[in-house]
């Protein structure tokens, strides 16, 4: 039963990587960490491609490092829930919009081309606020 569920998750991951909706790649993972995609858990390892809508979750000992296709980078700390609400990026013009929701935990961000090209392009939401990102390196925590 458990193994059937795991193989389904793996098939899900393979199908997802074959479509080119890739917005970011997981670079490092430690401890308990997972992606929730369309309410389905997806295993996360270095090289896992992320898509818009993905929820990154980490346990008490978990961390995830991510680089986006606009060069922005995330470090997700332990005990976090981070939703990639929106990520549209035209890699020819560098115009785009990025919206991230920190539901819980800690997120360090280095902004990339989207914020560089458009001061209104990148926002980060928390349960109590909305932040506009004008660059470049900052931390958001939600307790």
């Amino acid at each position: 039963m458990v193994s059937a569920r795991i193989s389904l998750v793996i098939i899900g991951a393979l199908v997802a990587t074959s479509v080119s909706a890739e917005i970011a790649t997981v670079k490092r993972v430690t401890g308990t960490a997972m992606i929730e995609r369309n309410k389905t858990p997806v295993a996360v390892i270095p090289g896992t491609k992320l898509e818009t809508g993905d929820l990154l979750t980490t346990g008490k000992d978990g961390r995830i490092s991510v680089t986006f296709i606009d060069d922005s980078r995330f470090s997700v700390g332990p005990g976090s829930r981070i939703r990639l609400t929106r990520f549209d990026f035209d890699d020819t013009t560098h115009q785009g919009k990025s919206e991230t929701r920190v539901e819980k935990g800690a997120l360090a961000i280095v902004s990339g081309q989207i914020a560089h090209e458009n001061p209104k392009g990148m926002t980060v939401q928390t349960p109590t606020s909305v932040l506009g990102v004008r660059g470049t390196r900052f931390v958001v925590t939600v307790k």
Partner: protein
Amino acid sequence: MIRPAGLAALLLVSGCATSTVTLLKGEGANSAGAVVVLDPKTGEDVKIIDTAGTSASLAGRSATVRSRAADTAERRFSDLLAGIPDPPRRFILVFPEGSTTISPESISVRDAMFAEVKRRGPGVTVQIEGHTDRVGDAADNDRLSRQRAVAARDLLVAQGLDVGITRTVGRGERAPVPGHATADGVEDPVNRRVEIVVR
């Protein structure tokens, strides 16, 4: 089934959630930049945080600002900051006009690129980005730059690069090499290039 008392406690917890933002020093020689607290309804700027080390605790339109030394803020989040992936690294390859092999002076750059891919290990990705000069129409140059990227990818894959970690991009004529911004229609071989971004 959540009992009413449990639900109330849950609402209380989310109602009491505290959010903070802390601006840090820029990476390397980059300046700190800024983070702006926005009005959740109108999107207007409410508070600009533009000094490294400054934190703000956030509640809707209000932001309570607290200043610390930039290094103190850095130490406070050192574990989290250590998890930020390495900055992407760029390598510029020059392809002589009409040629499918890289120019001799680009060979050492290509080798350095392969070494960087190996150094980064699992999770590494390689973006192959085509560029043109400003001869010809901008839309044609977008197409040409994409073709240049695909040709370069095929070449690098033939030399051992894993196609599965690559993506190709065409930037057309809009990103000249620094010092090589020209008027429209001007030929500049330096701008006819492929940039490899190792992430």
